[in-house]
């Protein structure tokens, strides 16, 4: 698999490109929660004319961009403890109200990272199972209750192992919760316990992609080319 690895590191999408692709699917006016880290980039790539409203677990809806360095107000942060800003339309609320939004199914989309996603939609993204200090945050709440749960991830681990798998080996974050996976090579939906390939980058063949995926990729109708701007 090392040969393939060399290949894909040259052709795979960057994290920014994966985030860009995910951003294209967000409807105008959608309420969206972005996971800490790489998923946060999605906010930057909303297409013209579409404006999502972002929610952060610690009690802010419809917040603005990061402030300039030196202008941070540390009472105004997001779930990643990064400074944010207010803008017209921002609302503050307490943590129980914030998770009432989550648990009550009011979020249209939650976008998270993953260690593994199973073909059943099971997600593992909170614990490597290796000991150390466990930490879960709001992920378990988000994945069980947002109307649509999408994952952004490299298609394979740094060691080249598949992250899309038949069943997760790591501790689960949620059961049957993921509906779409945006990877560095493809867009894959979870439908009825199966991975259905929707898009792949033109530079990789179906068979090569399948070899990098831990469970069968099904095709239903067209597989579109996954083409992103340089980012």
């Amino acid at each position: 698999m090392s040969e393939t690895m060399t290949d894909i590191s040259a052709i795979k999408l960057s994290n920014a490109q994966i985030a860009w692709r995910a951003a294209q699917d967000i409807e105008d006016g959608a309420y969206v929660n972005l996971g800490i880290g790489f998923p946060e980039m999605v906010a930057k790539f909303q297409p013209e004319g579409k404006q999502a409203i972002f929610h952060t677990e610690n009690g802010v809806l419809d917040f603005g961009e990061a402030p300039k360095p030196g202008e941070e107000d540390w009472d105004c942060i997001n779930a990643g403890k990064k400074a944010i800003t207010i803008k017209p339309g921002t609302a503050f609320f307490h943590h129980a109200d914030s998770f009432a939004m989550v648990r009550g199914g009011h979020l249209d989309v939650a976008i998270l990272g993953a260690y593994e996603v199973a073909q059943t939609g099971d997600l593992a993204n909170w614990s490597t199972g290796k000991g150390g200090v466990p930490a879960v945050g709001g992920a378990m709440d988000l994945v069980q209750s947002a109307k649509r749960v999408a994952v952004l991830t490299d298609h394979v681990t740094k060691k080249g192992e598949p992250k899309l798998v038949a069943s997760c080996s790591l501790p689960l974050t949620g059961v049957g919760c993921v509906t779409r996976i945006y990877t560095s090579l493809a867009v894959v939906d979870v439908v009825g316990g199966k991975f259905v390939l929707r898009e792949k980058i033109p530079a990789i063949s179906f068979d090569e992609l399948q070899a990098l995926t831990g469970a069968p990729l099904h095709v239903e109708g067209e597989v579109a080319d996954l083409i992103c701007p340089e980012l």
Partner: protein
Amino acid sequence: MDKTIASVREAVSVIPDGATVMIGGFGGSGAPIELIHALIDHGAKDLTVVNNNAGNGHVGLAALIEQKRVKKLICSFPRSADPRVFTEAYLAGEIELELVPQGTLAERIRAGGAGIPAFYTATSYGTELAEGKPTEEFEGKHYVRERWLKADYALIKAELADPHGNLTYRMAARNFNPVMAMAATYTIVQASKVVELGGIDPEHVITPGIFVGSVVEVAKPAQEEELNRAEAVYP
């Protein structure tokens, strides 16, 4: 994104026969009279209505009942200064009543909005309103298990609204309105004033827009108590 709609007529036109509709207010305080009257004009029937009360006089919820649009009422206190409309319909067997203790009603609605399908409360333990419900002992005290309450639509009276649906309320007119806004699939708001985005301080927002489907401005809304003192009848 702009959730504002031009008229109460248009706002309620989405409500079909047979819908479950939460209506905010405690007595007349916070009751969205103009939305209720528009719902009467719209004509939807066989409704299940959730409200703390059962109407007063011949306006608002009482008028909706008098027009025979309500199949079932879920409430805590179906009495008022002039409860005749409900009382007669109920005693004639024309309307079903589910009586719920007031705090349990509020919490069931909040649970519906917060994704909590069931919770335990000491309220009503050992009474006939707990009959048939599971009970359990926690730390030596007895509790009744209650289920969430959700609705297809909520009709809400707010004071200020912005185009994203962020809301404030006026004094004790807040009451059930914020929790009902959470518990409905689609929440329709009448606000005394629609302000521009940013017109409500982020720290003063009581209902964030995520809970709101549409907003219509009703400047100088009618107050049920005043209508009743003037012996108003609708339609």
